[in-house]
């Protein structure tokens, strides 16, 4: 039987007041979700359901599919990782299969940066993820191309497979 459980564990860092749209500023919340016996650990920078956020719409009211997410500058996340984390911690990010989940506006502004891990959590000081989240929000823009013309702006969710990129980077 398929099961889906989400457990909110600890509110660890941050003092920012939540906005109506549930973006958490400099706060990350640790959650664990289980689906079909697979466990995903997340440090979320957003405490709502993405599906409930306003989405980009076509003139006919449809939700268009993104066809390309262009992260600009392309190397910002990898470079920021190298600035914030030491080599041992970068190994931890790879081992815990870390990926970065961004909620951005259809005009490209990044509003929320969360982290997702599979199998286990990394043994890394939590504050470092808060710093990384802040830096990405400050410096990254995400240009999204859609499969239909959008009439009304909204929020877009994209995930960067950070650990896959880090593995490739280290193998070169």
């Amino acid at each position: 039987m398929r099961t889906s459980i989400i457990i909110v564990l600890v509110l660890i860092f941050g003092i920012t007041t939540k906005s109506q749209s549930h973006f958490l500023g400099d706060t990350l919340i640790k959650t664990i979700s289980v689906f079909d016996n697979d466990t995903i650990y997340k440090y979320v920078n957003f405490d709502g359901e993405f599906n409930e956020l306003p989405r980009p719409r076509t003139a006919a009211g449809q939700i268009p599919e993104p066809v390309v997410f262009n992260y600009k500058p392309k190397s910002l996340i990898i470079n920021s990782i190298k600035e914030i984390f030491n080599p041992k911690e970068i190994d931890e990010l790879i081992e815990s299969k870390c990926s970065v989940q961004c909620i951005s506006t259809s005009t490209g502004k990044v509003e929320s940066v969360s982290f997702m891990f599979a199998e286990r959590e990394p043994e890394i000081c939590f504050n470092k993820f808060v710093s990384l989240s802040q830096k990405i929000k400050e410096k990254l823009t995400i240009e999204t191309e859609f499969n239909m013309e959008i009439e009304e702006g909204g929020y877009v969710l994209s995930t960067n497979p950070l650990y896959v990129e880090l593995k490739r980077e280290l193998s070169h």
Partner: protein
Amino acid sequence: MVQTNEETGTTRGFMMTVIPDQEYLASGGSIDSIDYYYRGADFSGLIVFNHLDGSFANGWKYEEGEVKNCFLPSRNQSSNLLKSVTILHIRYCYNLEVSYAGYSSTKRVCHSEDQYVFTAAFSSAGGGSSLFTRPSSEFGTLGGGGGAYLPSASLQPLTNSIALNNMLLPSQTLLLEDALDELIGVCSDEYIYNELVAQGKKFNFKMDSSLGGFAGYDPASKTFSFRNNDAISSGKLKEEFFHAFQDAFYAGGISQYYNAAGNVNIEFEAKLYRDITAANCCMAFYESSAPQSVKDQYTRWIQSLQENPFSITSTDYQKWLKLFNQYTNSYSSPLSSNLSYPHAIDHIINISNCF
């Protein structure tokens, strides 16, 4: 100019502008007798060809009846509309001083050179103009064999290799060529393109402003359609191109699944291909009503396939196909047992040497 090929019956049109040099006119030359087939034994000047939509096609520089240089559109100027060509007659002068055995004399020496100045309007910017000029010596000399109108197809090898009936304007064909060029920058997409060319597959390309999405592929008519010029991009073409590959790969093509059992199999496989080969994920469940935990788990599966594409299993594929069918109403259909495994993706993973 309107030309008809008597063998094939096809007709093409273009515009031809003749711009004589000052010296040619001063020496009694005339442009009255110059036409497409006869340029005159001593014609000096420029002959410029524009496509029927006004965009620049190519140009030829003549000196005393011989072609000396060829002007071709560069890719990033594909949307320019040539507005004017002006010849700047530049006279260079300097003083030459000769000294010998205490005797010196100064002589003023002059020579002239023609510079061609093109003025083009950026059609996509909705106005404004830009000026580009190059000395004629920067262009390659083609010898006496040139002088003709060059239709876009001859300059668009990627499009030309797969086009059966290209109904796009020349400027749109240039956009398509750029999109294909960018698309095949991804190894697996290059494999798909090369496979289609190797199998001799040909497609129609057309604009269709009534299209719901930006781009579409119709397997019944083998036609790629674009809603507007913005739709002609590699990102918007990618999934449609994969559909064309599925159409060639699966026995009987994919039109048999349109609005029938198997439609969801075809669509999910195309979205899975896009997600596995994309730098950032994920599109398949994007507009679905699936809970975030399902979407996160799908993202995890895609990441594991990006790490090791050979790890794809029938069990996992069927699990995600069923969830996609359950949560994505716009593509939902009865499942096809013939397509319970992503054979087209599996073929690309195993044969392309890209993974």
